[in-house]
């Protein structure tokens, strides 16, 4: 039996159980505002997720790093960095960067969209697997910041006036925002909604 069915609700901050109310009330133990479910969970998730998906286009098309040395200026996109590592004899690093910068963000946005659609339309997916997927995207989301940190370090490290300078490209900002937005979208999604849907109450 769920807490909601028992006429109870839990504080999302400290876990304290109290009687179910529709409006927000202050938790008697920690003082936090308590509601039975996260407010406007689905619409917030959708808004953040769609913004992230739109920003993901410039994040991949614009350069994340601009290297200028005496002779040449080169612009690297995310996929360009992967190709560079692959050809320069570090396939392991190429695979790592491919996973955290391309695979993880795309999978994360897909999974979140599937979970939100499942709640919205009552898709008959296995609920336990949905929760597992939710834990996975919660855990891996932050690792996508890797490329942003690499660019920041390169910019800070390589400052040789007249010889070589590395600058951050606009793609890096877009990509950083994609990671932040998908993290916020995951946070605003309430996984308890997966179990609430009345259509699958027996399943």
């Amino acid at each position, binding site marked *: 039996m769920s807490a909601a069915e028992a006429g109870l609700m839990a504080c999302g901050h400290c876990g304290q159980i109290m009687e179910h109310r529709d409006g927000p009330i202050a938790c008697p133990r920690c003082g936090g505002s308590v509601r039975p479910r996260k407010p406007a969970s689905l619409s917030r998730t959708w808004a953040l997720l769609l913004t992230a998906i739109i920003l993901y286009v410039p994040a991949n098309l614009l350069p994340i790093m601009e290297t200028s040395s005496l002779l040449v200026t080169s612009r690297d996109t995310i996929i360009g960095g992967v190709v560079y590592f692959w050809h320069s004899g570090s396939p392991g690093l190429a695979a790592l960067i491919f996973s955290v910068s391309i695979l993880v963000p795309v999978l994360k946005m897909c999974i979140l969209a599937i979970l939100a659609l499942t709640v919205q339309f009552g898709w008959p997916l296995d609920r336990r697997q949905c929760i597992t997927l939710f834990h996975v995207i919660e855990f891996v989301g932050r690792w996508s910041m*890797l490329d*942003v940190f*690499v660019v920041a*370090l390169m910019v800070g490290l390589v*400052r*040789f006036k007249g010889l070589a300078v590395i600058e951050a490209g606009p793609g890096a900002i877009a990509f950083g925002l994609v990671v*932040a937005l998908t993290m916020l979208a995951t946070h605003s999604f309430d996984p308890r909604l997966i179990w609430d849907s009345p259509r699958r109450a027996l399943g």
Partner: protein
Amino acid sequence: MNHLCACPHCDALHRRPALRRGEKALCVRCGSVLVRRHRLAPDHILALVVAAVMVFAIANAFPIVDLRIQGLRGGTTLSGAVAALWSEGRQPMAMLVCATTQVFPLLDLGCMLALLLTASRPGRPAWFGPLLRFVQEMRPWGMVEVFMLGVVVSLVKLSGMATILPGKALLAFALLTVLMAAILSFHPHQLWNEPEHE
């Protein structure tokens, strides 16, 4: 109603289990972790937090690496890298890096220090609840371990074009990553259910 607890992921109602140190309880309905109790006592975590604050200071004060290209020397501290981003007009990115690698981890350590120092005493101050909620909200945004991986990737990337000498901060960051991992595995949430005297 203190004998009950609800799964934060599926809302299933359970009788609150009595856990020994190092044990965790799983939700019978969705399989998520329902409650956990850390292997270490809050006092031990407090010691780790104090150590991490000192290592954090070292990690930010010294250069991460020294770089040499054809007689020219370069090197940067973490704040130097943030300043370089800022000065070239990438303020949003500078703020993102500064927040995730400096501000949030330091806030996390500071808050944990305050929480752990007061948790063992009878009667908790009025700010205990709000501070605990604050730590839980901002915790996902501290990314010291991701940054550490970023350092490794950058070094490999630069190793082809320059001579690299590891700086003092590199070791400190490695140590900080380990300490943070241990501290972050202690969810402040469990302070609510920690018996006050044992």
